[in-house]
C-alpha cells in the first residue's frame, strides 16, 4: 500500500508542475503584464523599460517561471489589476465560500446517490428501479445551467423560498447565529442544484456495480452457506459495490469545479467560479491564473485522495 501511495504521489508532482507550466505559458500568452495596469501612461518609455528590467520582466521565460513559482510558494499570487489588491487577499473569502458550497454539494450528492443507487441496483428491473433510472436519464440530459436557472426561477423568484443571490444576507454580523443561518440558507439552493444533477452519474455507477456484483460467483457461495438475502446484500454485495465509489471521488471533484462555475454565476454567489468568470471578462489575468491554478491543483489532489482511499480500503491493493 505504501509503495502504491508513494508511487501515486510521484505521479502527482509532475502533474502539478505541468499544470503550473501550462498556466504560466497561458499567462505569457495573455495580453499585458504586471505593469500594464499600474503605470501612468505619461511616463516616458525609457523609464518603463527601466522599470521592466528591474522587475525582471525582460528575463528569459524559465527564469520568470522560477520567480513566479517561488512567489506562489510564498503565497504571492500577484496583483489584481482591477481590484488593485493582492490576489491572495481577494481569493481568500471567495475560496471559503466555494469550499462550503462544495462541501454542501458533496453531502447532498452522496445523500441522494447512495440510497437511490442501492435501491435501483438491488431491485433492478422493477418499477422503482425504472423510475430511478428515469431520473438519471433526465439528469444526464439536463445541462446544469438550465436546471439551476429553473431552480432559481421556481424556488427563488416564484415561490421565494430561497434568496436569489449573494452568500449572506446584507447587514448580518459575522459570528452570530443569524449570520451562519443566512450563510446556510444561501448555500442550499445552489448546492442542491449541482447535487441533483451531479449525483446521477454516481447513482448509475453504483447501480451497475451492484447489478454486476449480484451476478458474481462469491454471492452464490454466500447463498450456499445459508446466508439470508439481507445478509448476502449487506455483507457481500454492498461492501463490494460501494468500494469503487471511493474511486469516483476524484471525478466528483472535477465535476464539482465545473458545477460551481455555472451555479455561482447564476446565483450571483461570490465564490471562486464567479470570480473566475468576472476576471476573464475583465481580462484581470493574474486573478484568472490564480483561480485556474487553485482549481487545477484541487482536481489533481482530489484524484490523488480518491486513489489513496481506494488503496486503503481495497485489500487487493493494500496487500501486495
Amino acid at each position: 500500500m505504501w509503495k502504491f501511495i508513494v508511487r501515486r504521489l510521484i505521479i502527482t508532482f509532475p502533474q502539478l508542475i505541468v499544470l503550473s507550466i501550462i498556466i504560466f505559458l497561458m499567462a505569457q500568452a495573455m495580453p499585458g503584464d504586471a505593469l500594464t495596469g499600474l503605470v501612468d501612461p505619461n511616463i516616458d518609455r525609457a523609464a518603463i523599460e527601466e522599470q521592466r528590467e528591474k522587475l525582471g520582466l525582460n528575463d528569459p521565460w524559465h527564469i520568470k517561471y522560477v520567480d513566479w513559482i517561488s512567489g506562489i510558494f510564498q503565497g504571492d499570487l500577484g496583483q489584481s489589476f482591477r481590484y488593485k489588491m493582492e490576489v491572495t487577499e481577494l481569493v481568500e473569502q471567495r475560496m471559503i465560500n466555494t469550499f462550503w458550497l462544495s462541501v454542501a454539494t458533496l453531502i447532498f450528492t452522496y445523500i441522494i446517490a447512495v440510497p437511490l443507487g442501492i435501491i435501483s441496483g438491488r431491485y433492478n428491473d422493477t418499477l422503482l428501479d425504472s423510475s430511478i433510472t428515469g431520473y438519471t436519464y433526465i439528469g444526464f440530459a439536463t445541462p446544469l445551467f438550465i436546471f439551476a436557472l429553473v431552480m432559481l426561477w421556481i424556488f427563488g423568484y416564484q415561490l421565494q423560498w430561497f434568496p436569489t443571490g449573494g452568500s449572506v444576507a446584507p447587514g448580518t454580523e459575522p459570528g452570530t447565529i443569524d449570520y451562519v443561518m443566512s450563510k446556510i440558507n444561501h448555500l442550499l439552493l445552489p448546492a442542491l442544484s449541482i447535487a441533483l444533477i451531479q449525483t446521477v452519474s454516481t447513482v448509475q455507477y453504483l447501480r451497475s456495480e451492484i447489478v454486476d456484483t449480484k451476478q458474481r460467483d462469491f454471492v452464490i457461495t454466500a447463498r450456499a452457506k445459508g446466508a439470508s438475502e439481507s445478509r448476502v446484500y449487506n455483507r457481500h454485495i454492498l461492501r463490494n459495490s460501494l468500494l469503487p465509489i471511493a474511486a469516483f471521488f476524484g471525478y466528483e471533484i472535477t465535476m464539482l469545479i465545473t458545477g460551481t462555475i455555472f451555479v455561482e454565476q447564476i446565483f450571483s454567489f461570490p465564490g471562486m467560479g464567479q470570480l473566475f468568470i468576472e476576471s476573464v471578462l475583465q481580462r484581470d489575468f493574474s486573478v484568472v491564473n490564480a483561480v485556474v491554478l487553485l482549481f487545477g491543483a484541487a482536481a489533481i489532489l482530489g484524484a490523488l485522495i480518491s486513489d489513496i482511499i481506494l488503496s486503503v480500503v481495497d485489500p487487493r491493493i493494500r496487500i501486495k
Partner: protein
Amino acid sequence: MGDKLLEIKNLITSFRIGDHYYAAVDNVSLTVNKNEVLGIVGESGSGKSALAFSVMGLHTKAKIEGSILFNGKDIVSLPKSELNGLRGDDMSMIFQDPLTALNPLMEIGAQISETLILHRPQMSLKERKDHVIELLNMVGIPRPEYVYEQFPHELSGGMRQRVIIAIAIANRPELLIADEPTTALDVTIQAQILDLVRKLKSEMGSGVILITHDLGVVAEMADRVAVMYAGQVVEIADVQTLFNNPKHPYTRSLLNSVPAEGQDKLHVIQGIVPALQNLPREGCRFAERIPWIESNTHEKDPVLHEISPGHFVRCTCYKHFYFPEEPKEAKVYGNTRG
C-alpha cells in the same frame, strides 16, 4: 442399498428464453444414499450443473417442478428461511472456479467463519476461530493461523479450492455437492483435491454428488454413476458396470472418444449438443447423433429400463447400437447381454 439421503423425483428445471420456458433438467429422478458418491457425467449443456443448483435452491430465475426430498422432507417448496437453515449446514456445495467463488474483499478466516456464525450462533469467538483453524488444517492448508488473515488473491488456485472445501465441510454436511471441483485445476492438484474429498467423505459419512465432465474423475471417485444428456439421465449404474458394460449409445460413444490404451482412432460423436431451446423434446434425444441406427429401434417416448438390478438405460435403441467404424454384426451380438 443404504439409507436414502436425497431423493429427486421427476425434477424439471426450466429457464426462460424469450417468451418460453425451456427445461434444462427434464424429468430427472435420482437418489443419493448416505456414505455414497453419486457421479453425474455429461458434457456442457447436459443440465448437470442446473441439477445441482436446483438441489441447493440457488436458481433465482428458474422454474422448478417435481420434488427433492432431503431426509424425507421436500425442499423445493420450503420457505427461504428454512432452506437457509439447511444450506451450508446439512447440505453444502463445492464450486468449480476457485478464483471467483470467494469474496475478494473478505479475509479467508471471515469467509469460513460466516458459515459457522449462520448455523452455530452459540459458538464463542474463540471457539469459532479454533474451529476454522482446525478446518484449514483438515483441508491441508499449511500455516492456517497465517492464512486465516489472508485475502483470496494471496492464495494459489489449489489453496483457494481447499478454502472452498473448508467452507463446505465446516458444519459436517450430510450431503456434499461438488460441481466440477477440479476442472480449473492442474492434474496433480486435482489428484490432491479428489483425495481430500474422498477422505472427508469417509470421515463424515456424507453423501456426495460429484458433477464432472471428466470420465477419469468419475471412474476414480464414484460408487454409482448417472450419465446425463440433453437434460435427461440416459444411464445409471454402479461404477464398475457403467465402465465395463456400458449400454446407452451416448455412454459408449463418450467412453470411446477419450484416448485409452491401445486405441488407434478416437470415436467421433456426430453433430453437436443442441442448444437448450433446440433440444428435441420428443423421442430419443440422442437419435439425431446416431443417424446410422434405424429410427424404428428408438422408443416413441423413451423411458429408463432396468436391465439388471440398479442398471437403468433410457430408450431401446441400445440393443441395436453399433459403432459405424465396426462391423455391425459383431457388435450387436457381442455386446448385448440384456
